[in-house]
């Protein structure tokens, strides 16, 4: 159980550090897999039901295989270079990752004072995943990496939910899963379009739409 959580945390650290897109995708896939099997370990096996099994299978299937496959395709289809160009270097990223880990553990400790939590380690991992997901989204250039970041963020949210022991009925869980899947799927499709339109998938060169360009000709109205 704790091992799983640690593994999740490690995957995040690895993601922050890795410079190769393909590897990152694989890593996210692995994360999805871990997340899929996580429920069985959370607070014993008291709720291993058919529903739960279906749920975890679905999540493994989607996050562990389908989405990564899609993303990999996107990667190959787009002639984009396979490296990640970060705004913040890998070393720095990993260091800040460690810092984030510390922060999340700190927060969890604080939370434990107010409420009893399923498993704090998992919660730490969850928070850490959320943070690192945001971190990836903010500091990575490529549209693809942003997708990955989003995926990590989502996983983090899942982990948090699990570890907080707040489970809803299966339908809600499934619905959430479906939403995420469709979301990532759409992102994947758009990746192709981006590739076609811009012949690069650098999200930070997406700034045609901004309010920087502007001319003050209109305030002649005042001065007349």
């Amino acid at each position: 159980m704790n091992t799983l959580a640690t593994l999740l945390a490690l995957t995040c650290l690895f993601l922050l550090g890795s410079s190769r897109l393909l590897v990152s995708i694989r890593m996210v896939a692995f994360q999805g897999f871990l997340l899929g099997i996580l429920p069985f370990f959370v607070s014993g096996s008291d709720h291993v039901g058919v529903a739960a099994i279906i749920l975890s299978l679905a999540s493994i299937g989607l996050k562990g295989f389908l989405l990564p496959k899609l993303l990999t395709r996107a990667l190959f289809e787009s002639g984009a270079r396979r490296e990640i160009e970060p705004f913040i270097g890998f070393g720095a990223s990993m260091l800040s990752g460690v810092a984030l880990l510390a922060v999340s553990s700190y927060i969890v400790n604080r939370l434990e004072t107010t409420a009893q939590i399923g498993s704090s380690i998992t919660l730490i991992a969850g928070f850490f995943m959320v943070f690192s997901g945001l971190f990836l989204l903010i500091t990575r250039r490529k549209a693809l990496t942003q997708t990955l970041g989003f995926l990590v963020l989502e996983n983090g949210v899942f982990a948090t939910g699990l570890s907080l022991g707040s489970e809803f009925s299966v339908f809600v869980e499934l619905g959430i899963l479906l939403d995420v899947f469709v979301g990532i799927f759409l992102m994947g499709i758009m990746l192709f379009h981006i590739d076609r339109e811009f012949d690069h998938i650098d999200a930070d060169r997406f700034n045609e739409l901004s309010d920087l360009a502007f001319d003050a000709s209109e305030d002649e109205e005042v001065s007349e």
Partner: protein
Amino acid sequence: MQQYLIAIALIMSGGILALITRKNRSVSTIAGAGSAIFGSLIAIFPVIKVLFYGNSFAVFTLNMPLGEATIGLDVVSAFFAVPVLVLVPLAAIFSGAVSRHEKHSADGYWFFFNTLAAAMLLLLVAANAIIFLLAWEIMSVAAFFLITHRDEIATARSAGWKFFVASHIGTAALMILFALLGASSGSLEFAQFATAHLTEELSSIAFFLALFGFGVKVGLLPLHVWMPDSYTFADAPVSAVLSGAMSKMGFYGLLRILMLLPAPAASWGWVLVVGGLLTGIYAMIAALAQSDLKKVIAYSSMENAGIICMAIGCSVMAMCWKQPVIAGAAMVGALLHILNHAICKGLLFFGSGAVYWGTGTRKLEMMGGLARRMPFTAVCFALASAAIAGLPPFNGFISEFIIFVAGLQTATLKNPQALLLATIILGGLALIGGLAVATFARTFGLVFLGAPRHDKKREIYEVTPLVRVPFIILIVLMGLITVASPWLLKPLLAVAGALMTSQAGFSAADLQGNLLQQPVIMVVQLSLALLILVILGWQIRRRLFSRGDRSDRLTWDCGYAEPDARMQYTSSSFSQTIVDIFSVIVRPYRHGEKVSGLFPRHASYRSDAPDSLLRYLFLPLFGLIDRALLPLRALQHGRLHLYIGYVAITLLILLLWKVVVI
């Protein structure tokens, strides 16, 4: 009351009809103007009834989204309805008559004109903050569209822009005001406002909010900047309505709020008096420096606003000092002046319209000698000028006389403040009056007298008979007010009483001091006698003693052989000496090169004075705000990951600020 509402409905529906039939000019003109005229005629009756036979509080209740709202017609509303009901139909006649000779499309003109009229009439009967604000805003919007009616002219658009922004700022103040009153009285009904127990400073805040909000419409000193341009670029009849009726709605609001607030503080009076003084002086200096006929008239209406403000302030002070007679006199003066100003402004703006129509220009430099070409307009304009400059025997003098008397009476109080007040009022009125004489002597003289300056080729038209009707009606009204002023005092005192009884606890009886009656009668008699004598003398001279007189000589010009129209004094040069003295207030642009050398080639002098406050206060201010806000636009730089950063940071800040107490 029913009649009144019917009138509003009629006017409004006429406007809509005009909008529908706008393609056919004559039909839409008939619909718009006709409904405006008939509506006003209908509305006159209830107003007269209320004014002369005491209050008739017919209260109607409407079901508005923000709760019940009542409307009712009382003496004060009735009084302020008079200028509206006088000017609206006449302006309708005027522009209806003129528009027949125009090519410019009348799209929406009548709709907004009637909307303006209806909104003003509704505003006057509003006894509820929401309806008041509603009518107020509709009024402003209609005015905006009327000002920008000639929207192909860029300056007209910017005039409209200024007006709309200014009036919106004013409305913001009014919204706070009514929110405040509503909050402290628990209702938006005016009747309830009176019962709201405001603390000293709250009521002061309320008053100054009102002064600000309504001051914009009235055109008090710093808030007048929209006025000159708007009145200039609106059509003449519209300007007449705006200046004579709409801007008076500001005074209506101010007095109405004054009625609802608890006993006034001396500070209010001081602000009003000093503000009025500065407004009046500023306006007159600015008017002298203008080279555009309508701008001059616009500034003059600002000046009269100043005078009225001073009178109201005097009355407020007198209320504080428990001097009902003075308070009453000052208030009566203010009210009468509002009436007179409406009439004179009507005449002047109509006159300017006629001149513009006849000569095709508004530039004073291009006019002169029009009295020969358009004698009718000249006579009307002369009478109006004399009246607005407050010269006897005209109505303008009567009201100024009453205000003066109030001021003199204040001076008799053994109270340093009172003496100071009297000094400001008398000195101020005298100075403003003197400058007004200068302004209108200049205006009339340069437009209608002397040798013509316009190019000889252009044909000058005198107004058509139909257009003369409003002029004649207004002049008759002028005469009526002058002659009947002793009898008008009673209803005016009634209005003043209604305004003040709620305040300082005066009973109407306190106001009926015969301070005014006898002097006014004397003044009227003497001035009429004078008028008759002058005319008599002139006629006798003309009929009996004019043998051998000859008028075929050139003007004496130091023996210069070939005098020429271009040699006569221009408007710029006329006002130069005066403007130079007050150059603190008005800084005219001076164009033209000096005369130099023994045989100077070519020299010219032209001065043009844009509003100083606009130039030195508001434009820099707006520019400053603009420049301050500009850099912030960099926030929207278009980089997605930083956008996500915003989200994350917001989240972090919130958590740190609200939850995690480290």
